[in-house]
């Protein structure tokens, strides 16, 4: 499938039916202030939010990353107007849509959403699904949207006759057709198998960049968040714990929990002495000055195998482009990423050295 970007002449007029406002398709900014949400009763409701604030610039793609039950879907639904928080403000394009005394119902927010189960209307054809949010002049807009996602010619089919990947694209086309200010995606790829997921992820990524639309998507997959998100907001227990670019998040996690949640990491207890820390396998340069006990964040690619006998090879996992070697050293397991031509075997005695730029460290608690 190829994504063809419509020229400006192709682009459909924005839908005006039932909308609070209409105009040229402009990516909207999102402002979230002090959102709190607590569900009534036990267990059944959506996860809670605790004082969440976040600013999303127009045209930006942001990933909400967190373990299940952390509130990321609740936050997404709050932006859509599908949940009403106890307190706090949601503004889209500086227009307050949720807040004390103001409430814009979801149908007038001009927010598109792709649901986890895609929520295609099973009784409508693909074309009618896509046309659902459009007023008059629907035919051109439907054709444009289907072309956008590479589904030309499927308009007359019923959703259930499409493959999972195609259904996902219909869901995307349907959400984009009315030209929303913001596109929300709730674990959009979790229902697909691995190969297709990676393929679609790249397509959607390119499409979002091409359209320049503001997008917020929920995922529990760190790789997905890193690949698609301009920035990633990591959530835990209803709070946003860190917002940063993927690179920043990976290099400078705000606390040990984030460090181990995003990417492979080992935290090693060391004694810091200013700009360095001493470990059982040598001196590690630190990014910032520390003194006393610290937990040094070691990514597998920052370590290198050398001749020696300090560590024992516990396990070798072959990934093709690289190999992960698990080492037992001083009662701890270290993970080392090496090239695919590594020549160690399980049980070998080896040495390990730190081989990277300065490491990130947390003061030990």
């Amino acid at each position, binding site marked *: 499938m190829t994504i063809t970007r419509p020229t400006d002449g192709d682009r459909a007029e924005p839908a005006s039916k039932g909308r609070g406002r209409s105009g040229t398709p402009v990516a909207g900014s999102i402002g979230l202030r002090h959102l709190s949400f607590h569900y009534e009763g036990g267990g059944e409701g959506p996860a809670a939010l605790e004082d969440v604030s976040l600013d999303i610039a127009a045209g930006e793609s942001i990933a909400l990353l967190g373990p299940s039950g952390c509130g990321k879907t609740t936050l997404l639904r709050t932006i*859509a*107007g599908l949940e009403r928080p106890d307190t706090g403000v949601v503004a889209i394009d500086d227009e307050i849509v949720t807040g004390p005394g103001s409430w814009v119902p979801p149908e007038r927010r001009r927010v598109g959403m792709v649901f986890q*189960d895609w929520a295609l*209307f099973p009784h409508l054809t693909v074309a009618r699904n896509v046309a659902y949010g459009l007023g008059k002049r629907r035919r051109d807009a439907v054709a444009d949207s289907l072309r956008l996602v590479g589904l030309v010619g499927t308009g007359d089919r019923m959703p*259930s006759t*499409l493959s999972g990947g195609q259904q996902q694209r219909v869901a995307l086309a349907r959400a984009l057709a009315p030209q929303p200010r913001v596109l929300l995606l709730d674990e959009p790829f979790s229902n*697909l198998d691995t190969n297709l997921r990676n393929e679609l992820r790249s397509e959607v990524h390119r499409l979002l960049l091409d359209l320049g639309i503001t997008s917020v998507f929920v995922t529990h997959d760190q790789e997905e968040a890193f690949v698609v998100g301009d920035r990633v907001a990591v959530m835990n227990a209803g709070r946003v714990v860190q917002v940063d670019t993927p690179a920043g998040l990976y290099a400078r996690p705000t606390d040990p929990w984030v460090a181990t949640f995003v990417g492979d990491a080992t935290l090693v207890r060391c004694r810091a002495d200013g700009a360095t820390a001493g470990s059982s396998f040598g001196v590690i340069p630190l990014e910032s000055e520390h003194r006393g006990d610290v937990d040094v964040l070691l990514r597998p690619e920052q370590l290198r195998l050398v001749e020696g006998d300090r560590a024992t090879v516990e396990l070798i996992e072959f990934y093709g482009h690289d190999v992960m070697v698990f080492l037992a050293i001083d009662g701890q397991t270290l993970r080392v990423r090496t090239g695919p031509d590594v020549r160690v075997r399980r049980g070998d005695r080896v040495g390990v050295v730190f081989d990277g730029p300065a490491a990130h460290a947390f003061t030990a608690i």
Partner: protein
Amino acid sequence: MTDSFPTAPPAPEVAVDGDGPADRPGVVRRPRPPGLLRVGGLVLAAIFAFPGLYLVWRNLTEDADPLGLVFSPRVMEPMGRTLRLAVSVSISACLLGTALAWFSTRTDLPLARLWRVVLPLPLVFPTFIGAAALIRSFNPGGLANDVLATVGVDRTPELQGFFGAWFVLTLFTFPYVYLPVAAGFRQLPGSLEESARLLGDSPFAAFRRVCLPQVATAIGAGTLLVFLYTISDFGAVQLLRYDTLTRAIATNQLANPPVALALSLILLVVAGAVVMVERLFSRRRSDIGRIHDNKPVIYRLGRWRWPAFFGMAVAAALSIGGPMLALVDWSADGLRRSLRGGRPLTIDAEEVIDATGNTVLVGVLAAVLAVAAVLPIAYLVGRYRSRAGTVAYAVVISTFALPGLLIALSIRFWTLRSGLVFDLVGNTLALLIFAYIVRFGSLAMGVSLVAVQSVPTRLHDAAATLGAGSLKRLLTVDLPIMAPGLLAGVGLVLLSVMKELPISLLVSPLGFSTLTTRIFSSFEDAFVAEAGLMAVILIGLSFVLSWFLVIRRAEHL
């Protein structure tokens, strides 16, 4: 209660992989059935088809020319009344059932769970008992009349004729719509409505454009059940003196057989035509998606919360509470009266126990045999690839449209005509049970098929690789897994047999009475205390059985 009208033979078992295009599904090829099973299925189908075909055949061959009577006023007038009643009841039951289903499943109505359990209950009332209870309550001296009088209403509507029949039948048939529609509303993923909202629909528009189309099939199927029930109802229209086809058949079947035959042919055609129309208009719905943990949207009623609650309470009070109270009131009156040495009851305990025993006996026999009779066909359809199975299944399912009165009539005419048959089975319980099986086999069919299909093929394969032969597989894999489903089927048929009136009245051997026949004749003879007493027993029994066998199972659906 899973009264549902199975609309089409089941789709073949389809294996769709993670991302296999669903239009090129990997259909698991099913084996051809053993010859004996095939023959058995066809024989069973012939037996199920017999009563209906016999009526048609008698119409065509009778010397007195029933076909010539078809367009006479004696036949057309009752037909007009039947249609008028059936259409009115269908519309009102459809609206009532759908509304109650929506409120009890999709809103924050107080005590929503309670209503979901209570609202199906009117189905345990045989309509004639419900009719009897409501007639007496609204008559002077009746319970409802007294209540209304205390609030200053001294002219209560007299329940009779068209209005009475419409009112009573609506109250006791709306659960046929309520049950499937409520299930549909509960299964509808909330993301569909939320999508519609985000695409610009108001809540009402989302309901109309997305929810309603999803449950349209359920509404159609439920309304069809109401329609079929209404045209085949005999007890309620008899007590309410509204001359429909069934009542005319019952009055003519002894005095004027050709007229009865012509009337029954018309009834058969109406029932068949309606089923065909429903089949034509109900499109097969595609499945809703792969994730079903998506909870339905619950709407906040706000200030309409308590008015809606009140509406629920009125519906429940009229269809369950009121009739139940009336029955208890009569029986208590009767018992008090006879204990104080007033006019004694016309029945003694022995007769009541006898009738109760008979009810349970024929009910259990008919229910077990009905499930056993349709099980081979369920196997043919669910497990094998067989045209014989498809035909047999279609035959059994189509008997659903055959009113009980017609089965009773057919069997009566048959035994009277054929000396051999009369000598062999005339006046025996076997004939009665046969009639019940034909009447309710279609109910058992759907449930049995689900049970057969609930046994995964791979369990069979696993058992086979572990060395189990076909008999051992049947005993150790199939039956244990199917048992709950089959039991639910037995329960469903049992409940229906206990409520059945026309077959019980016309086909029972001389001197054999069940609770329904005794209640009906007691009420016709104006012995209300006796009728009330036995009705309380019957309904109590139905209630306990439906709780254990059907409702408890349906609740987790």
